[in-house]
């Protein structure tokens, strides 16, 4: 399992909570520019894997290496979540986590500003750099809202957005941090079919136009099969299969894992 240009290298990661093993010897490689999807029944450890990749959880064993560029590499394990994010890993959450009392625009702007250098002194005195950065973040936030097609919601409060819009806002906010890789945790959960279609189109646009690698957790098999170039199937904390959508659909192990758990695999 070697690759010329990986963006994520996960090696033998094991994560335990007391006696429960959430991830067991998980290894995977994501190529640069790839849409890789992680699927698996409920409780398989998908979100735990995401939390390990973003530094929220500290796995007991194994290593996670992130390559922001071909030459650089960063060890994720032991890094604080905000430093992982600064390195270029952006994510969305399973249950969307907006800054509810802020407007859509402010939400995106906070994402853009997170990497700016302005400190409290500059902010108080409105030094030239602060103003310059403010101008940039305003412009960039508008661009991002346009990109995810939320311009009509610019001044709406985040918590009064419909579900589909929230998902897109979360993606826009994550894109504001200028990430190298985007981790999407069930972006289509709770959206209606037409929203799902728009979301799939948005994700593939982000991948092709912006060249951002995408790691996707999703239960909707139609969406996953149409988007992902490669799939990894988790069950009981371990990788049970890996391959193209075609291969996965035919894999007996996967069918077995899904039987009884949900009907989706039979579709």
């Amino acid at each position, binding site marked *: 399992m070697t690759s010329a240009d990986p963006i994520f290298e996960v090696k033998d990661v094991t994560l335990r909570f007391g006696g429960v093993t959430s991830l067991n010897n998980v290894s995977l490689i994501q190529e640069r520019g790839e849409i890789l999807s992680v699927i698996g029944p409920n409780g398989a450890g998908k*979100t735990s894997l995401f*939390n390990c990749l*973003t530094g*929220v959880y500290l796995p007991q064993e194994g290593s996670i290496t992130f390559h922001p560029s071909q030459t650089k590499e960063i060890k994720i394990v032991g890094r*604080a*979540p*905000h*430093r992982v*994010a*600064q390195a270029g890993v*952006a*994510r969305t*959450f*399973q249950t969307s*986590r*907006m*800054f*509810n*009392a*802020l407007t859509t*625009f*402010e939400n995106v*702007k*906070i*994402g853009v*500003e*997170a990497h*700016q250098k*302005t*400190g*409290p002194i500059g*902010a*108080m005195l*409105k030094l*030239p*750099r*602060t103003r*310059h*950065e*403010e*101008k*940039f*973040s*305003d*412009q*960039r936030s508008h*661009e991002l809202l*346009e*990109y995810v097609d939320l311009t009509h919601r*610019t*001044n709406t*409060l985040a*918590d009064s957005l419909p579900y589909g819009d929230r998902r897109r806002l979360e993606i826009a*906010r*994550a894109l*504001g*941090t200028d990430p190298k890789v985007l981790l999407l945790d069930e972006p289509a959960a709770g959206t209606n079919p037409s929203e799902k279609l728009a979301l799939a189109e948005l994700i593939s646009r982000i991948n092709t*136009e*912006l*060249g951002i690698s995408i790691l996707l957790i999703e239960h909707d098999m139609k969406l996953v099969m149409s988007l992902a170039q490669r799939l990894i199937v988790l069950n009981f904390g371990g990788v049970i299969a890996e391959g193209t959508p075609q291969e996965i659909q035919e894999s007996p192990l996967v069918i077995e894992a899904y039987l009884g758990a949900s009907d989706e695999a039979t579709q």
Partner: protein
Amino acid sequence: MSTESTVPKKRYWSLNGDDVRRICTAIVGGLVLAIMTGPEGAISDPTYGVKTSLLTRHVVGYFIFGVVLGCLLTYRAKVKDGTWRRVRTTRRRTLSELVTAFSSTWRYVLLAVTTFLVALIALIFADFSGPVTRNKMSMHVLEHQFLYTRTYGYLVLAVALWLVVVNQAMQLTSFRLRSLPRPVLGLGAVLAILLFSLTSDPFLPARFSWRALDPHASNSLFHHWTTYLWLILGLAVTITWLLRRDPITGAKPARRSRALVVTPEMRFLTYVAAGFIVFEAPKYLSLYWQISLYQQIGVFCLLAIGLNIVVGFAGLLDLGYVAFYALGAYVTAYFSGALPLQPPFHLNPFFIIPFAIIIAMLSGVLLGLPTLRLRGDYLAIVTLGFGEIVYVLANDWTQVTYGSAGTGAITNFNVHLLGINYVWNPVNPLSYYYLMIGILIPAIFLFDFLNHSKVGRTWAAIREDEVAAQSLGINALKYKVMAFAMGASTAGVAGVFTAVKVGHLFPNTFVLQLSITILVLVIFGGMGSIVGVLFGAIVLQWLPSYLNFHSYFGYQQADLYLYIGALLVVMMIFRPQGLVPSRRRRREIRDSEEGLGSADALGAITQDQPS
């Protein structure tokens, strides 16, 4: 959209039209202030006063102060609360355009009449603010009005005001009087209560009573009918502002966008009114209220806006805030040589301020770094402990602090620089008051800028959802410590001001109760809103002083906290967001009432880690 930044490179120090206008306004403002404070003229040479005013040394200080103030006042934030105003939505018609819309005869009549009236008003106002022994309102005095240099200053101010008012009036062509909205009625009621309570106050000079407008009797503020002009002007503008319509379409402004339609004239008028209240009105108060204005209100305003950063902006509950206040005060005592522990060098109180800021800030950082990883209640307990530690040290470590016996005498503020010698005498509270204003106003503006900047938004994000904020690369700990340190340093400055004015420090000033009081000011006024917090501090600090003397309804000082507690309970039931809430806070409270989000008492969320 491209992934690269597409903002064109701009030179950092290039000035645009707005900047130039701002600088010019500031310079004019400084000159006006300088002339207004200058000496009198002489019969033989009416302009003597202006000349000397501009040549004497003390005017330089006023000029610099005016320029700085003008710079701050005319600074307009483009982005308020994240709502981006890209272009001005309605085109403002200029004054000349409007005047040319009249027929020429009417135009001249209007100009002549208004100019005459304005000049007269300015002259009379200048007269009343002149030496108190003068025989007010006689033509003789008016004739010689130009001997007073401040007359020129008032004339400039009056003309500026006149321009604003005429412009405002012209724009309201489709003005129609409807039933008065509730805010106007509320404002009127508050004003009436304020005026009547002030006039019945025995602490004010005896002449300060509600009599006919006898020009010979009084130098009191409410005896000058010009004061009523100010009030009527303010009320008229408020009403027209609330009832205003679009000059072209006659449409009412959308309620949502109300905050954005504040015209530059409105802003200017608000500043003028506030400036009048802040700078002119205190001169007419009695000594008791002048002392209260500094010691009870000014210092607590500073403390409240400092704590507002911690509690309101960053959403951290700090119950030991008074510790930093005490640190600032004891640092002052130390560098004045008022403690048993002698300093290596004695310092002028002005130079102690930076030391107090640094020491309070450092202690804030040291306390914050380990404790700010905690959330909500735990943080409150740790800060509570810190407050007690500082109090016990001040009380019991007698070798360093003299303990409960109190410190020695602390030096007053004084200036001995370039031939200027001035000592702030504690007997004259107004001198301290103006010094306090000189710190408070810049602080208010700086903190407001901070709240509407990246840092303020980041604090809001951390308050809303710390995990999501971290996922964007925000170092939550760093920002929390930053808020803590900034709040602490503000308290340090307030400590210096208190120590210098009071002269002797006693540890029992810095008890837990004081921390709670400051927190109450913040919560009562409206967490996260600087205007609200100032309002809370002014009301809650003024009211006890007032009630205390009158003993209304059998009020006794010991009962104060009983009433404040009751007030808080009532507030939390009926208006949990505070008297003048910040826009963000208002949303949070509304959301949680509708079952969305989770605004608790402090806005700090208590979501658990993702699983």
